[in-house]
C-alpha cells in the first residue's frame, strides 16, 4: 500500500456522487475508480476526482489492460495509467486476470483465460509490464466464470502461481467467486481456504443478477443490485481466514442514491469490525 492509511470499507465512486462523497467522513472510508474512465486531459470529471483525493484515499481498479492477452499490454494504455498513478498516488492499484485486446482491437469486456502454462506466462508478462510501467506492485482480481474452461489447473493455484512469479498480490472478489461457484460448480470455501492470506490485498463485494433465460442456474456479474446474503457470508468467511483486509463495495449499474450505498458500506463495516487486525484461523 502507498501511504500509511488504514483502509476499512470503501466504495466504487461514480461522478454523480462526487459532492456527497467529498462531504462524507467515516473512519477507514476510501474510494475506488476505474482509471479508464479518467483518461482525459482535463475537465470536471478529473477535477472532481482530484477534489475527492485531497481528503480520501483513492484506489485505481483497471479494466482495460488485457493483462492475459496474447500480445503484451498496449504501451500507450500503460503510459496513461502511469500518469494517473503519478497524479493520484493511489493506495492500491489492481487489474483483472482476464484479457480483452487482440490484434489491435479492444473487445471491451473481461474475457476468460483458460488456465494453462502458456497462458500463465502471458499473464505474468502482462502483470510484470504493468507493474514496471507504474512503478509498484498491483493486485490481480479473480474472474467471474460463466462456463467451465478447458484448463490444466484450478483457478486459485493458478492465481497464486502468477502472484509468486510476478510479485503481484491478489484481489479476492467474493461476488465473482459466488457467481463462479453457481455457474461452474467450484467450491468457494475451499478456494478461500487455499489462499495464502499474505497474498490478498483487497476484497471486493458486489451484487449480481439472474439470467432472464436460464434463471438461477446462470448468475451474471452485473454489479447492478445490492449484495446478497450468500456473498455477505463469503465475505465473513474470507475475513475469518485471511484476517482484516480492505473491502470495496462495487456498484456499476442501476446506481442508487449515495446514501443507499453507504448503508451497504455500514453493513460491511459491521462484518469487518469483527475481524479487526487479528487473524482467525478457520
Amino acid at each position, binding site marked *: 500500500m502507498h501511504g500509511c492509511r488504514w483502509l476499512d470499507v470503501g466504495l466504487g465512486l461514480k461522478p454523480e456522487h462526487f459532492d456527497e462523497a467529498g462531504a462524507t467522513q467515516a473512519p477507514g472510508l476510501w474510494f475506488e475508480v476505474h482509471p479508464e474512465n479518467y483518461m*482525459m486531459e482535463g*475537465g470536471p*470529471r478529473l477535477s472532481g476526482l482530484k477534489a475527492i483525493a485531497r481528503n480520501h484515499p483513492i484506489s485505481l481498479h483497471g479494466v482495460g489492460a488485457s493483462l492475459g492477452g496474447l500480445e503484451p499490454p498496449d504501451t500507450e494504455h500503460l503510459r*496513461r495509467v502511469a500518469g494517473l498513478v503519478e497524479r493520484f498516488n493511489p493506495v492500491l492499484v489492481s487489474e483483472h486476470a482476464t484479457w480483452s485486446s487482440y490484434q489491435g482491437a479492444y473487445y471491451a469486456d473481461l474475457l476468460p483465460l*483458460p488456465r494453462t502454462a502458456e497462458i500463465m506466462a502471458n499473464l505474468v508478462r502482462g502483470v510484470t509490464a504493468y507493474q514496471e510501467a507504474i512503478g509498484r506492485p498491483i493486485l490481480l482480481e479473480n474472474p467471474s466464470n460463466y*462456463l467451465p474452461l478447458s484448463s490444466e489447473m484450478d483457478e486459485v493455484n493458478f492465481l497464486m502461481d502468477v502472484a509468486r512469479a510476478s510479485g503481484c498480490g491478489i484481489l479476492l472478489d467474493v461476488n465473482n467467486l459466488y457467481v463462479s461457484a453457481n455457474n461452474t460448480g467450484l467450491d468457494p470455501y475451499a478456494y478461500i481456504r487455499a489462499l495464502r492470506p499474505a497474498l490478498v490485498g483487497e476484497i471486493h463485494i458486489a451484487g449480481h443478477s439472474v439470467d432472464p433465460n436460464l434463471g438461477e442456474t446462470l448468475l451474471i456479474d452485473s454489479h447492478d443490485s445490492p449484495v446478497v446474503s450468500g456473498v455477505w457470508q463469503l465475505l465473513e468467511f474470507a475475513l475469518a481466514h485471511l484476517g482484516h483486509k480492505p473491502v470495496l463495495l462495487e456498484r456499476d449499474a442501476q446506481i442508487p442514491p449515495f446514501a443507499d450505498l453507504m448503508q451497504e458500506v455500514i453493513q460491511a463495516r459491521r462484518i469487518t469490525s469483527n475481524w479487526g487486525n487479528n487473524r482467525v484461523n478457520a
Partner: protein
Amino acid sequence: MSTPDIYAGMAMYIRDREPGGLDGLFRPGANLEIARLYRNGYYRNIREVLSSSFPVVVQCLGMDNFTTLAKNYGQAQPPERGTLTDYGGTFANWLADQMSPEQSWVADLARLDWAWLECLHGVDSKPVAATELLTARDPEDVQVRRLENSRLLKLEYSLLDFWTNTKLGKDEHRVVTLPNSINLEDQWVIFWRPEMTVYSRELKGIEAQLLEALASGKHVDTGGTDADELSVLFGQWLNAGVLQKCTREHEK
C-alpha cells in the same frame, strides 16, 4: 486448440457471432450458448459509451435505432485502446455513410455531440485577461492563441440552435424530430471551456477563419479585415475567455 486459437476464436465469436471459434476453449459438454454473455457484454458497453457520447443523436433517432447503429459501428470500427473514453471519434463520419439523404443532417448532430465532449475533456486552460496583455513587459507574453480545449467545426446544416435546445431539454424517453425547415447553409461553430462549463457559439465566416488561425498562436493574416471589426471581435473573444496566452510549447 493452440493458445493463439483461443484468442482468435473468442474474437471471431464476438465480432462475427461464429461459435466454431469457441471449440476447445470450454470443457466438453459446456452449454456454449451461454458464451453470448461475452458478446452481449461487448456490444452493451459499446452502446452505453456511444449513447453517452452522442445524446442528441440518440434523441433524434431513438434508442432502438441507435442501438443497431452502435452495434454496427462496433463491428466495423472496434475500439483500439483499452479505454472507451475516447472511442467514437470517427462515428460522425461513419454515420454520414449510413444515413439516408433525408437524414444526412444527423451526422452534423454527431459532430456537435463529439466536439462538445472533446472540449469538456480537453486540457484545462486559463483564458488570458485584457489586463495581462496591457501590463505585459515582454512582447512574447502578448502572443495569444485559441483555448487549447476549444473545438472549431464546420457543419453542412445550421443546427447549433436545434442541437442546443435538444441537449438542454434532454428527456431520454422523447424522440425529437427536426423542424420542418432547417437552414441548409454551412455553419461554423466553436465550443470552448474557460473553466468547467462548455460554451458554444455560431461564428461568422471571417471569425472562423481568424480563430482557426489562432489555434496555435502562429501569425494571423488579417489582410482584408476591417480594423474596427477586428478590434470588436478580439474584444469579444477576450471577454468570452476564448483566448489564452501562448507558451513556448505552443510555438513549437
